[in-house]
């Protein structure tokens, strides 16, 4: 199946970032050169696992008579491996990178939640947590793909070490939540503080369904991420993609804070009121600190 959704090139391969970095006379973005040893180790981990994305398929295929049971088995395995959320859906062209060919029928997504408490320890702690989570997702996707291949079905892991699938449309389709104003998908339990790994496969599996719980309606009135964004990169108005509201982040405004500085920027996700439900005290403390330095907090705070 051929993909139809463009993916922006990552790192210095992104022409927008490259142009901004070169305009200030640098060879690469400060964000990459200033990575801590822990961050470098996490990046090395997914690079190391990239060669295990695919592998030999067991010729003794396990017959699947009940895709519902098989889906339960796969989800249980992913949770055992360390995932916090697992979802399954049928792969569709808009879930695949433009021009990429993924010859599988299903996609399994396994997500690991970030430790939201890290927001109180500053930008580098948030960055390390994000990279730790990505590394964990890489391990889970690699192990899960191996597990599926051992059942006798082709399976390919997609993660930071190599991917041809798009996170947001898959998150939406498996019912993890809705796309928020800040451009990340919001889940009612984890907010937008989670990272994914994927496995595409032909293993017959029961599908999950989209599930909406009012995020986009809420985002239409809540502008907290927009008002807290140091680069004013989050737009007021939305567009429609595949019938769904979508706010397009202005990268030219985002990159000076997220790439052209030593420290990471994760603020749009950190200030999202959907964090309050499971981290009430941390969220209140964090937002009070921000209020003291002049940023907007949710109404009634």
């Amino acid at each position: 199946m051929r993909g139809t959704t463009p993916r922006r090139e990552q790192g210095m391969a992104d022409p927008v970032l490259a142009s901004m970095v070169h305009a200030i006379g640098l060879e690469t973005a400060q964000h990459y050169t200033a990575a801590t040893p822990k961050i470098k180790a996490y990046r090395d981990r997914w690079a190391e696992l990239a060669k295990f994305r695919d592998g030999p398929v067991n010729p003794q295929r396990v017959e699947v008579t009940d895709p519902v049971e098989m889906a339960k088995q796969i989800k249980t395995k992913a949770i055992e491996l360390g995932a916090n959320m697992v979802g399954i859906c049928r792969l569709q062209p808009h879930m695949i990178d433009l021009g990429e060919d993924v010859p599988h029928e299903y996609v399994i997504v396994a997500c690991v939640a970030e430790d939201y408490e890290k927001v109180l320890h500053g930008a580098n702690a948030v960055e390390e947590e994000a990279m730790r989570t990505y590394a964990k997702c890489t391990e889970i996707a690699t192990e899960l793909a191996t597990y599926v291949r051992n059942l006798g079905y082709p399976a390919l892991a997609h993660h930071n070490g190599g991917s041809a699938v798009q996170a947001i449309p898959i998150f939406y389709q498996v019912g993890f939540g809705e796309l928020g104003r800040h451009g990340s998908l919001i889940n009612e339990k984890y907010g937008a503080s989670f990272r994914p790994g994927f496995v595409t496969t032909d293993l017959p599996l029961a599908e999950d369904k989209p599930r909406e719980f009012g995020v986009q309606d809420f985002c239409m009135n809540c502008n907290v991420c927009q008002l807290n964004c140091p680069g004013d990169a989050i737009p007021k108005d939305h567009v429609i993609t595949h019938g769904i509201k979508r706010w397009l982040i202005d990268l030219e405004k985002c990159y000076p804070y997220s790439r052209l500085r030593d420290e990471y920027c994760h603020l749009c996700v950190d200030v999202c009121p959907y964090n309050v439900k499971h981290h009430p005290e941390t969220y209140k403390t964090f937002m009070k600190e921000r209020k003291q330095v002049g940023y907007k907090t949710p109404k009634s705070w």
Partner: protein
Amino acid sequence: MEKLYVNEIRPNGEVSTVGLFYSPKEAEGIVKKLQELREKKSCKYEITETPPRSAAITPRREKQAQAEK
């Protein structure tokens, strides 16, 4: 930098925004790749400097009901 929106206009008139791009070269390159796809042959593309007007979308409850069917 120039900001350009690529919009896909489907045969039924529905407009779906492909994305925001930062140069005519980047936007035109995306359109070219999309036009090469067999399943997109019936779609038209436009490159605009302003975001398209927000189209009406299916209410949440209705979409939920459709998904649960």
